[in-house]
């Protein structure tokens, strides 16, 4: 190459750099255009149900300036915008903001309250529910919603037989419209927790003119009856919600909620730090949370989650048919190590299948075995016939991606804890989620790690599926205890709350003694947000209510 050609190359490189610079730099200005939002004036009249804003100075009617938009980042995704097929946590959260069912939870509690109904009656020993709808219900497009529409929505779920159809099919015998505002639901058998079922999005009314009657409509943005309606939806990219003018209830302070879908937590964290988003929600890495706690511009809001993790022993496979072996392993388990080392304290050790914060919860495992109780474990192992020379061989299975990047470390720590007894030798194995599930179901995996997200908020959902003989076949039909079966069935139909609590306490005692399933930890919920964002309410329902969020602007 001659000097002249070198010159050309250099010039081209410089041009490239300049273009690169401009390509890079304006992304930040672009960000600013989205976050520097218009300001709208909202008149605050009432603050019921919402923690009073810190900066409120007077209770009188004062024009306050709230930011028009709040941007939330999530790493979850919305799978299906059709309530007849939506069956995952995050999609349900969105539905809880754009829709409402007959019942809803009071923010901050696990207490149910009326949603789109004014009132309801239970008849026929818990078999018939008569729902009285509110009179002024309107869908997001302004069309009125009546009992007919609710019936249509519920029947549609049964017709389509999507993933969450069992919420209807397992319980409902028939639905009848009594009048425009009255719906009568007849159940197959009485269920004590049916109001909790009536709170799931599967029971949300949807506009019949927008949804096909017997087909899934996955990208439907017609929405339901809720404080917000969908104005923009780009799958896995962005979801924009704006206030629903036809919502019967209180109008949210924030006009627009933008939800940005991130592929990974780190990106979301950086977006939060750079101000691209106001709120980082599900799910930041433990590392990131502990880092972000140090950031003075951010607030970390912590709440108890209802997500639990546990070890399952297949009691049909030797030597785990031996209760002593299970007890020994339960005793040796070091929950704190896992919570601290892997999750940096972003989860809590759990000592029962019923999560902390839910009624009837008891720390049964802690009472019985303590924590990392090697002495007890050794004693139990010796009783079961094992020693340093004749080690108990354990094959521990985990699944690498379903529960996140941390799973391998969880398995490693369990191995570590058990091997500390000196009498156990753990082989760790893993399988992809589908294989993992199938092998478990076939009863081929002796020790497995699983997690549970509740479908409805009731102790029943944390006990019956695991312990009742008819219901725990997904664990390879491993464990069956007629006494437990009886207690669980009784608790399901008992209408008296105290009676039920009593029964569930008994169940937990038996669980701890038999130890077919050993709880490890309970998730905590974290919202990390800019300091100026208010109204973040976290409760075991695990839903973030967007309609409570607001951000004050100006002085």
């Amino acid at each position, binding site marked *: 190459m001659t000097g002249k050609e070198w010159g050309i190359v250099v010039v081209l490189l410089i041009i490239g750099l300049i273009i690169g610079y401009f390509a890079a730099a304006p992304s930040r200005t672009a960000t600013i255009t989205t976050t520097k939002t218009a300001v709208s004036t909202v008149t605050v009249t009432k603050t019921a149900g919402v923690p009073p804003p810190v900066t409120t100075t007077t209770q009188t009617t004062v024009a306050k300036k709230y930011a028009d938009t709040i941007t939330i980042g999530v790493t979850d995704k919305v799978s299906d915008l059709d309530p007849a097929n939506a069956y*995952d946590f995050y999609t349900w959260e969105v539905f809880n903001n754009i829709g409402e069912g007959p019942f809803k939870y009071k923010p901050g509690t696990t207490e149910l309250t009326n949603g789109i109904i004014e009132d309801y009656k239970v008849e026929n020993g818990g078999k018939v529910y008569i729902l009285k709808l509110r009179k002024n219900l309107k869908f997001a497009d302004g069309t009125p919603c009546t009992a007919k529409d609710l019936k249509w929505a519920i029947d549609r779920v049964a017709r389509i037989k999507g993933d969450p159809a069992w919420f209807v099919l397992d319980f409902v015998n028939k639905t009848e419209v009594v009048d425009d505002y009255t719906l009568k639901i007849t159940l197959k058998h009485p269920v004590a927790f049916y109001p909790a079922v009536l709170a799931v999005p599967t029971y949300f009314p949807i506009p019949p003119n927008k949804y096909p009657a017997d087909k899934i409509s996955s990208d439907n943005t017609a929405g339901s009856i809720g404080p917000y309606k969908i104005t923009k939806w780009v799958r896995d990219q962005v979801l924009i919600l704006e206030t629903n003018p036809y919502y019967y209830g209180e109008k949210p302070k924030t006009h627009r909620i933008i939800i940005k879908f991130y592929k990974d937590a*780190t990106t979301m964290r950086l977006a939060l730090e750079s101000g691209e988003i106001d709120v980082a929600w599900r799910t930041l890495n433990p590392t990131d949370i502990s880092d972000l706690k140090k950031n003075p511009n951010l607030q970390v809001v912590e709440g108890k989650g209802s997500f639990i993790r546990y070890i399952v022993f297949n009691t049909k496979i030797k030597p785990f048919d031996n209760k002593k072996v299970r007890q020994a392993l339960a005793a040796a388990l070091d929950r704190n190590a896992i919570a601290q080392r892997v999750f940096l304290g972003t989860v809590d050790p759990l000592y029962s299948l019923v999560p902390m914060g839910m009624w009837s919860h008891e720390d049964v495992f802690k009472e019985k075995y303590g924590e990392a109780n090697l002495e007890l474990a050794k004693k139990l192992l010796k009783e079961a016939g094992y020693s340093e020379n004749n080690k108990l061989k354990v094959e521990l299975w985990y699944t690498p991606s379903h529960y996140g990047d941390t799973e391998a470390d969880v398995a490693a720590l369990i191995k570590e804890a058990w091997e500390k007894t000196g009498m156990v030798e753990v082989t760790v194995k893993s399988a992809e*989620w589908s294989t993992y599930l199938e092998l478990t179901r076939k009863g081929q995996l002796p020790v497995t790690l699983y997690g549970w997200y509740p479908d409805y908020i009731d102790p029943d959902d944390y006990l019956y599926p695991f312990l009742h003989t008819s219901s725990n076949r997904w664990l390879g039909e491993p464990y069956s205890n007629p006494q437990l079966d009886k207690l669980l069935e009784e608790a399901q139909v008992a209408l008296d709350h105290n009676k039920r609590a009593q029964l569930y306490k008994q169940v937990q005692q038996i669980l701890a003694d038999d130890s077919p399933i050993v709880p490890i930890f309970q998730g905590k919920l974290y919202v990390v947000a800019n300091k100026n964002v208010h109204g973040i309410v976290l409760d075991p329902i695990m839903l973030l209510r967007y309609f409570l969020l607001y951000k004050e602007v100006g002085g």
Partner: protein
Amino acid sequence: MSLRAYVITRIFLTIPMILILLTLVFLVMRVLPGNPVIAMVGMKASPKYIKQLEHQLGLDKPLWLQYVDYLVDLMRGDFGRSMIWGKRIVIQEIMDHFPATLELTIGGFLVSVLLGLLTGMIAGIRSGGKLDASMRIYSIVVYSLFIPLLGMMLQLVFGVWLRALPVGGRIDPGLEPPTVTGLYIVDSILAMRLDSLLSALAHLALPSFTLGLVLSGIYTRLVRSSLMEVLGQDFIRACRARGLSGRIILFRHALKNALIPILTMMGLQFALLLAGAVLTETTFSWPGMGTFLVERITYRDFTTIQGSIVFYALFVALISLVVDIVYAYVDPRIRY
């Protein structure tokens, strides 16, 4: 034989290739262990429900019958519906993710070709010299760079330390241009949206550089050896003897001849790009086919995986078809 006849022949020849890939995919998916239905309904379903679903999906039929069904469906252009979550139409899922991958691979392709051409030309012209040696080492070193590590380091430097470039995603949420092609850069230009364009370019910068840098080594090597071979040929000497200037010889004669064999390699290069894109996408949270496929593989979402792989196969076949046709068009010696 005319070019058109050649194109037709070439298209016919891609059919067995696609069939073989389809069969391979089918075998891998259906014969190896793992039950999609269980993965699909999760832990809460009853055995009866699983049986029912298996029947619904035709998984209880004999294997050969499933195979026939599978081929017939594909022939009809029916990729089926996803088995999990939204049960969305597979084609739609692919169309949601593929443009992202395409944008990334095109970006990576351009970077790798530009870098490779530059380094390869320097090495080829200065063959035997110090510059040549360093370019050769460049090509080997660069190819050995492990994409995730390189990507993470770039993220750390440009994303976290300098805060100059975004570390993940395709565009700032909210700036998406109206979908026409699905390629944000093209769409932003069509919509005349400068903010979208710049955001898309900024997001594309690190991933495409990572992918392109790693694969540029191959081009360095190809361009170098090809150029060296061409420069050693008699006709180049003849050109010099005719008193042509160095630039004309290099650009009009040598480079043109040197690039033709490289053109034939581009089809395979694209396969490498697609493979590299899987790791790049995972590292940069790029919402493309790679992350999508890896996610669905863990759920053994058969229909989607099959659909995606069939799509990959079709795409690879299409690329090699295009490359061959361009080759036949460019090189007068090839008249089939």
